[in-house]
């Protein structure tokens, strides 16, 4: 396990060196400009709009960065041939995948929580009424990003980085529409279609089960048991995808 942490620490340093944290700066600038603009045109609804749009931006920035970095994470080691050096030492394929994932997870934690905390402080500074739920919403965006990362790493074990990134983004979009697939399982008389819909519903990660943005703006009341269950589901999904990545990666010859 210490070997996985060593790979994680190295991946963390590598991604930080790639100036990923600049995304926080871009987000901050975009949100400052947006908040000034929104405050002037929203008829007193600046705080609500900033929180809503801010969470969409945190999610968007987070997913894009996570997908494009994780798509090249494994391939870069193969292309630079450093993978031969790593596997000449007593490092398992599973430890390599887990280390890569943990390293990028640490970087993404800084990115997502950096953006969320900045958003919280900005809403507090501009409108004096930030919702504490905003921070929890950031936490759940992070969990979704972890799932997208795990899915993208899985695709990157057998596809090119570009294809893995595109597939990762497609899975994120499909996950947002998961409830539609669920409604397909209840429509029509065809058992085959219903069965297929169930398979798709189970395979595609469910990103639309819970949305904390409505809780942040007072639109819904939080249901702790559903939120907790969803959090556990997302973690379990990420673990399954990492396991599948390991299964594919262990068959590769180096």
């Amino acid at each position, binding site marked *: 396990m210490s070997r996985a942490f060593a790979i994680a620490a190295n991946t963390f340093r590598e991604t930080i060196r790639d100036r990923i944290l600049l995304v926080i700066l871009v987000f901050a600038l975009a949100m400052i400009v947006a908040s000034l603009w929104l405050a002037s*045109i929203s*008829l007193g*609804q600046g705080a609500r709009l900033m929180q809503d749009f801010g969470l969409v931006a945190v999610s968007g920035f987070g997913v894009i960065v996570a997908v494009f970095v994780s798509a090249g994470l494994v391939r870069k080691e193969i292309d630079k041939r450093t993978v031969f050096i790593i596997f000449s030492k007593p490092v398992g394929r599973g430890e390599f995948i887990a280390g890569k994932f943990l390293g990028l997870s640490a970087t993404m934690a800084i990115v997502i929580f950096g953006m969320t905390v900045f958003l919280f402080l900005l809403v507090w500074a501009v409108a004096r009424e930030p919702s504490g739920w905003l921070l929890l919403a950031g936490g759940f965006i992070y969990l979704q990003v972890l799932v997208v990362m795990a899915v993208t790493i899985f695709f990157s074990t057998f596809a090119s980085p570009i294809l893995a990134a595109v597939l990762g983004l497609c899975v994120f979009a499909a996950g947002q529409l998961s409830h539609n697939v669920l409604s397909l399982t209840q429509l029509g008389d065809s058992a085959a279609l219903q069965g297929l819909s169930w398979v798709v519903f189970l395979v595609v990660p469910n990103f639309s089960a819970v949305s904390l943005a409505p809780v942040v*703006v007072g*639109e819904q009341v939080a249901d702790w048991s559903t939120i907790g269950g969803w959090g556990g589901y997302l973690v379990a999904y990420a673990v399954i995808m990492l396991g599948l990545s390991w299964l594919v990666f262990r068959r590769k010859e180096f």
Partner: protein
Amino acid sequence: MRARGDGGKRERGSSVGAGRRGVLRGVVVGLVMLGCLAGVVGFQITRPAQSGADPAAFVPSPKFFRELSPSFRTAVADAYWLAMVQYYGEHVEGDREFDALPAYVRLVTDLSPRFERAYLFGAFALLDAGEGQEAYELLVRGARRNPQSWRIPATLGMLIYIYAGNEDKDALAAEWYQKAAAVPGSPDYLPRVAAELLTKGGEAEESILMWGQVYATGDTYARDKALVELDELLPPDPEQRKEALQPLAALMTPQQFLTLSSILMGVLETP
């Protein structure tokens, strides 16, 4: 030697010619670029005049967004809230055609059923658009979806009292005021307004009270509207006006009352 000299001349000549051709090519490319730039900029700057303010803006069905993006539903509602405010602002100053306004209000409030401000602003905007029934239905829908809000039933009571034409409007308005008063945390004056409506005093006094309530609790837009209405309702004589304003002191903060009376007494200009 001669031949070499001629060759040198030819080389110099051809390099000068190539240089000229390069300059000429650069000038032509530059002119083409400038022409294209003028075309692009010219096309874009003439668009506002060409498009005008289209009263029939396209507003999708709420069902479309409910199926498309549940995670971003409130963000979509917020984006359309901005579009609705913009749409209203454009047309209220211009052609006063509000064809798409009911669709905007429905979309925003269906995607975000607890967006209190959307109901309140939407109701006033729909009244401006001559859609009284739509405004009434919107506020009834809002009161049903937001049992924790006292502003929506109070505004509904006020609008029924001022704009409804039916004979039992006082009783109906009082009923909504009573509902508003029953909400925990509602202001103390609501039961009084309801009681006054039920006992029915002078209409002007009640209207002044109600517009005072709008001024006390509304946003910038509602406050501006309340100021215009109050200015019309209040007697022009300064002494009588001052006296008629006094009951409003109980409806708002001292600072609000000071600002309101200063504007209506002509001390301050309307913001």
